[in-house]
């Protein structure tokens, strides 16, 4: 484990129709049932609560309102807020206590790079990707609930692409779920609608660029 492994050649042993269909079904179930762990350290946690708790944004529409307090039952670790040296082992432990398959969304500048606490801070970690493998980064300080939703939708897209049965251990490099700058509100709405309808064209990851892959854990 932990060693990078090149992806198999195109058309290699994964053309089984039954497995592919089964893959689709399992991925569908996983992506639609992302139960988050109650985990928040600072400011981002409030915006995360606005997303998961508040009735305006209402994460329950996506079936993700079943917030579990114990990592054993959670699928999604939303790291909301600064992680400092003392917290890092705890975060790692929480991640390891979660049952596979588990996904990590890192929200906020602090989890990406240390945010406003990069310089002169003797404790703040400069990004959490050294501690836990991150699937999706959501930038912002703190990110709006909508941004978090965009991150969750991006994660859903990633899960749908994943090959779950043949290669269960594969994990992508993290993706940043940031909207490009200068997007108008209408364009954002369009993009969200596209994701919601699941019509986004999914590139077959195994036939694509093999450097996109890396063995997780």
């Amino acid at each position: 484990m932990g060693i990078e492994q090149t992806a198999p050649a195109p058309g290699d042993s994964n053309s089984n129709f039954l497995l592919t269909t089964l893959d689709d079904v399992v991925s569908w179930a996983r992506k639609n049932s992302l139960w988050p762990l109650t985990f928040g350290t600072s400011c981002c946690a409030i915006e995360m609560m606005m997303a998961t708790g508040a009735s305006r944004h209402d994460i329950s529409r996506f079936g993700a309102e079943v917030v579990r307090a114990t990592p054993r039952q959670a699928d999604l670790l939303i790291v909301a807020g600064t992680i400092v040296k003392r917290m890092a082992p705890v975060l790692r432990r929480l991640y390891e206590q979660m049952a596979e398959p588990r996904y990590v969304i890192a929200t906020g500048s602090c989890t990406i790079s240390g945010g406003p606490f990069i310089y002169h801070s003797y404790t703040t970690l400069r990004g959490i990707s050294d501690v836990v493998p991150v699937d999706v980064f959501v930038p912002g300080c703190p990110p709006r609930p909508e941004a978090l939703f965009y991150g969750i939708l991006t994660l859903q897209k990633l899960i749908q692409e994943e090959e779950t049965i043949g290669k269960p251990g594969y994990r992508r490099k993290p993706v940043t779920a940031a909207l490009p700058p200068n997007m108008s509100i209408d364009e954002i709405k369009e993009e969200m609608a596209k994701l919601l309808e699941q019509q986004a064209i999914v590139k077959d990851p195994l036939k694509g660029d093999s450097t996109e892959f890396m063995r997780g854990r």
Partner: protein
Amino acid sequence: MTAFSSFLFNYLNGVTANVYEPVSVATRAAEVWAHEPWLAIGWLALGMAVMLGFLVVIGMGLIYGERKIAGHFQCRLGPMRVGWHGLLQVIADTLKLLVKEDVVPAKADKVLHVLAPVLAIMATLLALAIVPATPWFQLIDVNIGVIYVTAVGSIGVLGVLIGGWSSNNKWSLLGAMRAGAQIISYEVSATLALLIIVLFAGSLQLSTIVESQADGWWIWRSHLAGIVAFFTFLIASTAELNRTPFDLPEGESELTAGFHTEYSGMRFAFFFLAEFINMFVASAIAATLFLGGWMPFQIAGLDGFNAVMQAIPPGVWFAVKTGGLIFLLMWFRWTFPRLRIDQLMGLEWKFLLPVGFVNLLFAAVLILMGWYFAPIPA
């Protein structure tokens, strides 16, 4: 095949002419066992298959319903994206839990850890078997039905206790201890409340109790005793179900997840499912004993009204009564805060139990004197 056709005939006849012959599946199987053993096995298999389907449908339906109802209580929508109005949400959840990794903590007692959720779900399944959903469908009609329900219900607490103990986690243990104390205490009150109806109906058999309510449901035929018993049972069974305001064993803000803190994947789903099926069983028992089970609502003297009521199939009556009680339980959950453990025990031992005993005495006097609305059915 004659039995099948006669069953179909009986059923159609029953629906059209309101002539019910309450015969449980087990009875049917026993009847034909001597000369047609394969048919008997067929009956049993059919019964089990229907029960299993029932279990899954009820479990999923209740979970979906709970999430939707909770959503609307909280000014939001609940699941919307998976299927039409989130109908497929529970299926996605179940599928995900099925294929999720199943963690057994390294220092846990592995055998007991695996056994606990099985015990919990087994207890609910056993209780579900005797619920008289309609006159023509009941898996087994035990002649000591009421005692059977309370006895089987106590197996569930074993599952919770074992689960909490075997996890080797202090929060789990605390949750399990709370569950043990709470469920065993409230079982006393629930049983006392059931006993009152047993006294009135003169039988322990659930089908007989339902039939005894043909002239009126026990909740109003028995003066005050029935109403008090009904509310006692409702409170006690809410406590037995570990639902708010009595959800101390898994009180999320106190004990992270209580007794199932260390459970993941399908085993957690078993606990989860058991809770919802238990809710159904408790509501069904309450509906059967106090609200007349599948008996239609009748008002003496209003023949036209009664005829309309009787035209509604008994299964619908049963579903409506049980559903109403389930909705009430959900309403509790999304409105009330949680009690503290000593307040919870105080409520049982200092209030509900004395009330239950006094009520039992009162009911006994009522029966001795014959001071209730209709005669005991022969």
